[in-house]
């Protein structure tokens, strides 16, 4: 029930609501819980509400760590 995938904030409307998208699909979302959200931010959207903004710097760091682990696994012949 708490599943939510990151979606990009594509539009902020006059009423303060947002339009978020992922791979071509879009959904309206309430932005009241993420007052700092700006266009291009990746949002975690749950039940019509953006509940948090994805910290892409932290996400990139973790992805890089996993890539490095993968390379080391390769080298070790795992």
């Amino acid at each position: 029930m708490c599943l939510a995938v990151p979606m990009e904030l594509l539009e902020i409307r006059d009423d303060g609501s947002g339009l978020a998208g992922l791979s071509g699909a879009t959904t309206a979302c309430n932005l009241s819980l993420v007052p700092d959200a700006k266009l291009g931010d990746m949002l975690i959207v749950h039940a019509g509400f953006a509940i948090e903004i994805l910290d892409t710097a932290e996400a990139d760091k973790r992805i890089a760590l996993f890539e490095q682990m993968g390379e080391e696994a390769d080298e070790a012949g795992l």
Partner: protein
Amino acid sequence: MKYLDGFRNGKAAKALTARLKAAGERLDAQGKTVQFMEVCGSHTMAIARYGIRDLLPDCVKLISGPGCPVCVTDTGYIDAAIDLGKQGHILATFGDLVRVPGSDETLAQIRAEGARVEVVYSPEGAVALAQDNPEKQIVFLAIGFETTMVPGISLVKIAAEKGLDNLTVLCAFKLVPPALAALGSDPEINLDGFICPAHVSAIIGADAYKPFVGPRGVPCVVAGFEPLDVLYAAVELAEQAADGRAELVNQYNRVVKPGGNKVAQAVVAELLELCDEPWRGIGVIPESGMQLREAYAAFDAVKRFGLKLEPGRPHPGCQCGEVLKGKITPQQCPAFDKGCTPTHPLGPCMVSSEGSCAAYYKYVRREAGAETMEVSK
């Protein structure tokens, strides 16, 4: 999508599996077997879907916890909703709840007999129903953990602003930390660590688990819902267990802040207050729920309709309570895949797409159906 695929990297899974094996050998050498609970239903689904249990050493067990809000909704709550539906009021609900058995029937059954049970995808859908049906009373079935509380309760504010007097909520909001405290202190369960929920933690913050760690505590790892997130959490917990440490690690720091979402916390504090709450199969946990504050009593279905919520009668053969406490696996329930299947569920754990029994049915029972991380690149 980078922010999904990056967490499904099969090669990294191999590296993590090797670390798990090494931690397992250290645990074996100490003669220890450890049990970690994944609290959240979305973790349960990811673990089953990606076959993560198969990657664990024998001395490391992952057990499912009470983290599917549909599964822990008390039978008596469903009975109360059914009564309201039969009285001719319109019920607005998120989808999974309609097939959850009450004492005698489900919302789906009363809908087939003519009651109006409308599935909505956000609480705003319930507001629209209230506007479109001014002669009817609309009751929103507000269940969920901290994640869903703000979206769920926001319609009270919208209703107040719009002056809607035909919209109420039937609250059964639940809080995760009191449930962890109850399970953690149950001597029959014996937990060695928690995989803490992802999006509940986005609201309450990673620091909410500080009371559970430390010298007399167990390790807690906040993890996202992608397969590598879960596997990495299992590695962290196993390594801590082998070291004899009990620390809090926020591995989902791409979303979860130490203090959580303060705006959401303020909305909750304004509208809701603590209450004792019944959990299906577990019983009443003190101060583990949230109800509307007196100032918003006009929007409380319990008060408007003079409801008295009684404990219901769950199916006598259903062992959801034991499953939710991690005491048995779904396959150990005699009804699993016999009397109880997703098309004919006896209990909520088989209904909800995130219920443990449904996850086991879909992915573990049919081994061939389980995806692996290799396939998903």
